[in-house]
């Protein structure tokens, strides 16, 4: 279970406050979505949970299964089961996809899988997400299209088997067919790992129609302003954020 308790978050460099008294609880197996206008802190939230170097938590706490993770480094958080599917995955020249994933898997599981079994598993996962096997030997995300980068993120998710998955605008840069493929893979992952939880950050309801969140939250001015179900996402798409009636965030989300 992931609990974010009255968390305020600022940028380290210029002390700009982004999240203010933000609270959210995601229980095992739940799927939550966060929507909100540009610049309201959705991606900051995702990065703050992962311990990004540009942000500092000024108050509040983040608990994973009841224990604070604020003192943990980013890799320690990943080893606890957190996974952030990035909005714009970083290009790393000179480090091959396979070398990176094998090192990551060894770090997460603590065991070095034999090469044959690793290649078999990863090739199967690549087939699932419709990625060419040649991409395994290319530099990480280098020369990948926007869609290939996102599929590669989902490939990493399938290989590393996290328990809490944060999807930061997974749907940006994906065509309709690619979106369907990655969403089918996430749904299948959820079926195979029913305790896994999802936090979807998005601007559009289309991805939510595939992944069917139980809760949709609207983030505005650094905290959750409204919580509802799928109907809230559809209402936002129809009427925009400006027409939204706000309610206090704390009671509705904790």
């Amino acid at each position, binding site marked *: 279970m992931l609990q974010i308790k009255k968390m305020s978050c600022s940028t380290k460099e210029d002390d700009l406050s982004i999240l203010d008294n933000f609270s959210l609880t995601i229980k095992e197996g739940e799927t939550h979505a966060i929507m909100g206008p540009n610049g309201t802190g959705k991606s900051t939230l995702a990065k703050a949970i992962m311990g990004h170097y540009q942000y500092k938590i000024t108050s509040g706490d983040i608990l994973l299964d009841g224990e604070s993770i604020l003192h943990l480094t980013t*890799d320690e958080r990943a080893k606890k089961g957190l996974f952030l599917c990035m909005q714009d995955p970083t290009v790393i020249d000179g480090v091959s996809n396979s070398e990176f994933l094998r090192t*990551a898997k060894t770090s997460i599981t603590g065991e070095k899988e034999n090469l044959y079994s690793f290649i078999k598993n990863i090739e199967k996962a690549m087939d699932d997400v419709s990625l060419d096997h040649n991409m395994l030997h290319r530099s990480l995300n280098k020369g990948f299209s926007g869609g290939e980068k996102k599929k590669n993120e989902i490939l990493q998710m399938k290989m590393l088997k996290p328990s809490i998955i944060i999807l930061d605008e997974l749907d940006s840069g994906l065509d309709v067919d690619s979106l369907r493929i990655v969403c089918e893979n996430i749904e299948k992952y959820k079926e195979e790992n029913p305790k896994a939880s999802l936090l979807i950050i998005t601007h559009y309801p289309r991805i939510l129609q595939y992944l069917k969140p139980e809760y949709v939250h609207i983030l505005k001015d650094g905290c959750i302003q409204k919580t509802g179900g799928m109907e809230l996402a559809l209402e936002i798409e129809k009427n925009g954020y400006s027409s939204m009636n706000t309610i206090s965030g704390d009671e509705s989300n904790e």
Partner: protein
Amino acid sequence: MNKVLYIIDEKKDTNYQYNICEDTVIYHFSIDSSSKVEINLLTEGVTLYYYYNNINYGDHFLNIRVNHKESNTHSELYNHGVNVENGKLDYYVEGCVPKNSSHCICNQENQIMNMMDGKSTIFPNLLIDNYDVDSNHSAYIGKLSEEKLFYMMSRGLTEEEANHLLLNGFLINSDSIDLSKIKKFIKEIKKI
């Protein structure tokens, strides 16, 4: 490519002169050394790829000059260095195309990573005396990217593992390098 050369310098200052008459790839690995390199492209249409990868601790330099002595010659220089401590590392990189050599390609890419507070300088010079040359240069001096480290650590790699993979990718920057020929250099990367 017809010819492939491997050079490893360790703690010594070296001078090299190459007269290139056939397509050639040179992998030059340098550990805490200074090098002066002069390359003459002597046959029309010849291509040279030069990969210089350098681990630096003290005060050292690379001075490399490529002379396009014939038309239609092609040079690609990739100079990568890691300045590990507080030493001084200077790269002087020159591509020269005289007036009588036409339709040449003369490119260079230079990068130095400072791991601590070392002072690094790159002088990327293109001395071109012809209008039909295709020529580019780039120079970057900086630290290892925090964003790259974050991305790798978000997948469970420790900072040390992420650093090692990044440096390995930076200093062994061609898939064609035969790793069995540079074992000493790989060992040095692990020490950074």
